[in-house]
C-alpha cells in the first residue's frame, strides 16, 4: 500500500470535493481517499500494483483540478 498526498491549486467549491472523492472511490486499486477542502490536498492510499500515482494524478487533472505537487 502506498500513501500519497497531492497538492491541488486552491479548491474553492466544496462540491469539487464530492466530485474528486466520487471519482477516486470508483477507481480500482484505491483503498482509501480523502479530499481536504481547506488545504486543497488529496490524500490517497492505494495499491501500487493496481494503479500508479501518475494515473491518479492524471485522473484528478482530467476532472479539471491542477495538481501542483505530490509527496
Amino acid at each position, binding site marked *: 500500500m502506498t500513501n500519497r498526498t497531492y497538492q491541488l491549486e486552491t479548491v474553492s*467549491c*466544496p*462540491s*469539487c470535493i464530492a*466530485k474528486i472523492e466520487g471519482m477516486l472511490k*470508483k477507481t480500482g486499486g484505491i483503498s482509501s481517499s480523502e479530499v481536504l*477542502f*481547506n488545504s486543497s490536498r488529496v490524500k490517497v492510499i492505494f495499491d501500487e500494483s493496481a494503479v500508479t500515482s501518475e494515473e491518479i494524478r492524471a485522473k484528478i487533472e*482530467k476532472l*479539471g483540478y491542477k495538481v501542483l505537487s505530490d509527496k
Partner: protein
Amino acid sequence: MMKMTKGQIVLISGILAAASFVLKEMIGYEKITILLMLATTVIAGAPVFRKAMGALRYRIVGIDALVTIAVTGAVIIGEYWEAAAVTFLFMLGDYLESRTIEKTRSSIKALLDMAPEKAKVRRNGTETEINPEDVVKGDFVVVRPGEKIPVDGTVVEGSAYINQAAITGESIPISRSVDETVFSGTVIESGYLVVRADRIGEDTTFARILQMVEDAQDKKAKTQKFLEKFSRYYTPAIIILSIALFLATNDLVLALTLLVIACPGALVISTPVSIVAGIGNGAKHGILVKGGEIMEKLGAVKVVAFDKTGTLTVGKPSVTRVEPVGMSEDELLRIAAVGESYSEHPLGKAIISTATKKLGPINETLEDAEIFSGHGLRFSLGGKTYFIGNRKLFTDNGISVDGHESYMQSEERKGQTAVIVGTGEGVCGIISIADTVRSDARSLVLDLESRGISRIVMLTGDNGRAAEAIAGETGIREFYSELLPEDKVRVLSGLRERYGIIAMVGDGVNDAPALASSDLGIAVGGAGKDIAMETADVVLLSEEIKKLSYAVGLSRATVRNMKQNIIFALLVAAFLLAGVLAKTVNLSFGMLVHEVSVLLVILNAIRLLGYGESKKPGTVQSGEREIAGEKL
C-alpha cells in the same frame, strides 16, 4: 483548444459580454449581437462544461452540471443574453471566490513562509551554507542576527536575544545562551549562537506545528459534516424538482432558473471558511486548535479545570528551606538528590538543582529504587533503605511522622510543599519547596469568569494546604488536592456529569491521562513538549496561560461567524426561491445573487482574521471587566 488561465477567461468573456450588452441595448438582437453572446457563452462555459462532463462520467452531479443544463437550455430556447450572462457571472464568481478564499487561509500561509530556508553549518572548521534539509543531527549550526535558526538544538556557544514568534506567537525577544534549547523557525535579533542540531527537518517543533495546523484546518466541524450530507442529497433533489416544475407548468425558463439559484454554494462553504480563518488566527497568536469540532466546543466550555504545578504555577519549584534531623544539611540534600535522580518529578528536580549548586555534581548512583506514583519513592543507597515523599508514603510504610507534624503544617500554611526524607526507623529531615504562581494566572481566572465560565477548579496531587495557598493567590474557589493521576480522571468525569463540557488545562507532561479524558485537553507551554502537542486538543504554545481566555473568545467569535454565514445563506436561498416562483428573479439575476452571496460569506469569514487585532490579545474590554467585578 488553447489554454487560458481563469483570469484570462473572465477578462475575455467579460469584454464580450459587455460588448454584446451594449449592442443589445443599441441595435437589439441582430446577428452580431447573438454571435457575441454565443462567443461569451462558449468561452466562459467551456471549462464549466468540461468539469460537468468529467464529473458525470463518475455519476456525480455537481454545480457545474446544473449550470451546464441551465445554459444549454437557455441557448436552445433563444435566451442568448441569459446564457452569456450566467456563464460569465459563474466564471467571475468562481475566480473571485478562489482569490478571496485564499485570503481566509492567509494566516496559515504566513506561518508556512516562516520556515527557515538556509543553514550555515560548521564542519571541519569551515563554515558552509546549505539547505536546512541537509543538516544532519549533531551538526554545529551558526546563526547570526536577522537569521532564522534552522534546527531545534542546544546552544553550545554564544548568547543571543531570540524572537520566538513563529513558535509562540510572542514577539518579545527572550535571551538564550549556552546549554539552553532553541527552536527552528525562531529569529536571532541580536547576538550570535552556535547550536548543536538535536532535531532536524520534519522532526523540529516548528515543522510539527505546521503539520498540525495543516491537518487541523480539515478536521471537520459537526455543523460542516451535517451541511455536506445535506448538500449531497440537495443537488439531485433540485434537478428532480425542476423537472417536476417544468412538467407541471410547462415553463422551461422557470425550471432552468430554479436549477441555477438552487446551487447550495454559500451554505456549504459557510462553515469551512469560518473554521479555517479561526484556526489561522489562533495559529498566528500561538494557539493551536486541532480542528473544527474542537473550535466549536472550546467556546461552549462550562467547566475549566487547571492542574496546579506547571500550569497555574511556573512549574520550576525551588528549595526554600532544609530542616535536617540528626544529620547535616548537606548530607540530607545529598541523600535526597541521589534518590530523586531516579524520578522525573518537578520537586525532585528542584532538590537536585539545589544540591548540585551547593555540593557540586553528585555522582553517586542508587542501588535500587521503586516509585509510588503520587506519593514518592523508596531507594537503597550505601546498603540503607530510604524513603522520600509525602506523608502518605510514610504512613503507608508504617513510619511515624507525628513528631514533625507541627513544623510541616507551619511550612504548608505558607504554601510550601514539605518533602520528607527518612529511613524505616524515622525522619531524617524535611525539605521545603515552593513554586511561584504565574503572573497572569489571576487575571486569566478573572477573564474566564467574565466570559461566563463560572466553574473554575484546580486539581493537584499536592497537599490541601499548598493547594489552598495557590487557589487563594489565583482566585480559584474550588480545588481538589492529594489526587493521584487516576483520581484526577475520576474528579473530571464527576464534574462533567454535573456541569457539562469540561476543559482540562495542564502542562501536558504529567497529566496526559487527564488531558485525554476530558472533553477538551488544553496544554500550556506546549512548544517542545511532544506528548503535550500530540495529546492535547488545544495547545498554547507559549508559556502565557492568559492566552486561554483569548482562545475561548476566538472560538466563540468563530462559531458566531459560522452561524451568521449559515443564516445568511439560508435567507438568500429562501429569498431567491420565492423570487423565482413569483417570477421576479430571472436566470442571470439569480446567478448574480448566488455568486454575491458566496463572496459575502467568504468576506465575512475574512473578518475573523482580524479578531483580537484592535485590542491587545488576551485582554477583556473594560465593560466586561466591570461585570466580572460584580460577580466577585
